[in-house]
């Protein structure tokens, strides 16, 4: 067989497999859903949270759902190959759970118009079968900002940030605004670690912050190291993405958990019913997508009540963490009295709010 004919016939075979995959949907076979993860399912953070969502869907749908996942898929060309492979092996729906998969998802989606693609934290929608979803983590950060402000004794909060991108800056501002409202003397010290995950670096950052007088540590990096350091030094801390209390039971106050299960179950159900449509959603505490882990008993009852009231207010829509008047750090007006932040402003946020010290690195 010549090389060219070999390629043609294998392409045909692949095409056949793809047709069979979509045809299967019409029968009473289980819906096949693929998940693509950027990290290992055991990272105890971002990817673990997505996999918990997948498992919840498996539990919910039982035999009518079949899932596959590929972990540690690098952003870039490799992810396109993984998606194509999933599509060819008969997936009806694919969840890709990292920002950097965007170009590949859109390219693959154009080739497989019958497959529903869901992209977490993305912004590109170049095909009618690409849907975007994200979570309003800043709502959770506002709640922990309030708790931190009410519990600190040194009035210094240490914040371990990853990269200076809008998502992270938004989190710092949300936490700071809520903290400032509860305690006008509060001061935030931000350390940019320039990594999402490097336990040793994060541990050193936490130590440096505690040494500089911070008695509460917040983190926007993924490892549990800052918590263990906080426990060692008797400082307080918050978990990231998952309940991390087992690493620092004495000082873990609560964690902002990502709860993707409700969204996954709803969208898979829609795909089964044939009502799925591409969308662009940004869900938060009201939708149960951002959840705070059970409060540590160390949080005084009145502070717990205030935090719960804040969660309730965010849930019923009466409170938005970014409600004016809010000025930028340089003193210029961002939001007027009573105005709430438009989503576009948040997603492009590149400035600190008034009162924050330090500067955002370029």
């Amino acid at each position: 067989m010549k090389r060219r004919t070999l390629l043609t016939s294998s392409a045909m075979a692949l095409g056949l497999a793809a047709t069979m995959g979509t045809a299967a949907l019409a029968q009473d076979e289980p819906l096949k859903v693929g998940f693509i993860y950027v990290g290992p399912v055991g990272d105890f953070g971002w990817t673990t949270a997505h996999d918990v969502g997948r498992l919840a869907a498996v539990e919910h749908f039982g035999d009518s759902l079949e899932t596959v996942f590929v972990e540690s898929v690098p952003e870039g060309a490799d992810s396109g190959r993984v998606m194509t492979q999933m599509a060819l092996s008969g997936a009806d729906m694919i969840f890709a759970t990292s920002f950097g998969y965007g170009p590949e998802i859109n390219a693959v989606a154009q080739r497989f118009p019958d497959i529903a693609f869901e992209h977490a934290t993305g912004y590109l929608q170049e095909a009618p079968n690409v849907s975007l979803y994200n979570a309003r983590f800043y709502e959770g950060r506002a709640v922990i900002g309030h708790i931190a402000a009410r519990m600190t004794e040194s009035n210094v909060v240490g914040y371990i940030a990853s990269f200076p991108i809008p998502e992270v800056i938004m989190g710092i501002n949300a936490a700071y605004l809520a903290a400032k409202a509860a305690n006008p003397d509060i001061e935030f010290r931000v350390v940019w670690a320039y990594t999402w995950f490097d336990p040793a670096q994060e541990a050193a950052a936490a130590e440096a912050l505690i040494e500089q007088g911070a008695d509460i540590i917040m983190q926007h990096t993924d490892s549990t190291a800052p918590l263990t350091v906080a426990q060692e030094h008797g400082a307080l801390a918050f978990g990231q993405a998952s309940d991390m209390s087992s690493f620092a039971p004495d000082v873990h106050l609560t964690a902002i958990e990502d709860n993707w299960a409700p969204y996954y179950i709803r969208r898979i159900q829609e795909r089964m019913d044939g009502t799925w449509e591409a969308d662009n959603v940004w869900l938060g505490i009201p939708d149960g997508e951002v959840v705070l882990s059970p409060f540590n008993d160390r949080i005084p009852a009145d502070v717990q009540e205030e935090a719960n009231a804040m969660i309730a207010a965010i849930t019923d829509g009466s409170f938005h963490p970014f409600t004016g008047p809010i000025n930028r750090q340089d003193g210029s007006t961002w939001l007027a009295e009573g105005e709430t932040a438009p989503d576009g402003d948040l997603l492009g946020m590149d400035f600190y709010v008034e009162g924050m010290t330090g500067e955002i690195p370029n």
Partner: protein
Amino acid sequence: MDLSSINPVVLIASLMVAATPILLAAIGELVVEKSGVLNLGVEGMMIVGAVSGFAIAVTTQNPYLGMLAAIVAGALVALIFAALTQLLMANQVASGLALTLFGLGFSALVGQNYVGIVPPRTPKLDFGPLTDLPVVGRIIFGHDILVYISLLIVAATWFWLNKTQGGRVLRAVGENHDSAHALGYKVTRVRILAIMFGGACAGLGGAYLSLVRVPSWTEGMTAGAGWIALALVVFASWRPWRVLAGAYLFGGIMVLQLNLQAAGFRIPVEYLSMSPYLITIVVLVIMSSSRGRRSMAAPGSLGRSFHAAG
């Protein structure tokens, strides 16, 4: 925002801790390279040490048994590399890279059941009232046992390489394996032992991360420390005391930049995080010129396979 809020004593104490994993891995790799072998698998050996040490420490509830296990595990993984490169004459660069990939995957597999567990605590050594002394108390008498062991290993390596017959043989093997062979030294045996020593040190360095520094197990937790250790050996131009100085310099840059940030200073974080790698690249460039290579004293047979002819 003033410099006085940074306490130099604490800074030095914490840079010693931050530097210990790379110091251990680098001093092991130094011996390996001195014997003429380039093992790029440091990262892989470190992470296997990290997971094995963690698993045994959790199972036995004894951190010291965990460290011992990490030493053994690191040496065993290194033995795979030794078998490939010394007995089967495989390419050292490719085998070393493969070892890193293998180590990362293998550790993830073994570590699956150990995610989210807190290991037994490694106590700081008790020097009684000495620890309460001003300045020196915290810098000299305020650490856990591995910090002291790492310093001892550096001193012992220096002494052994320069002052003993065994060390001279190892250096001869690294400088010119054909001559060493002609003189009757067992080139392959020396190199296999050196590789195992390197693995043991890297494994211990990994265990320091998972048992003392972090302490918990997460996949990929070495996060590039093995590569910094490799760079460090070149940076130190294959001299033990310079490895120590380099490790504390690299560790110091990291700790200092974090402290400066925490104190509210505006510093170019990106450049400081890059600096260990940048310095190493500069050293490598200098080394690549033939005159530079001599002055840097790279072992003559570094990276070349030895096959006894006749």
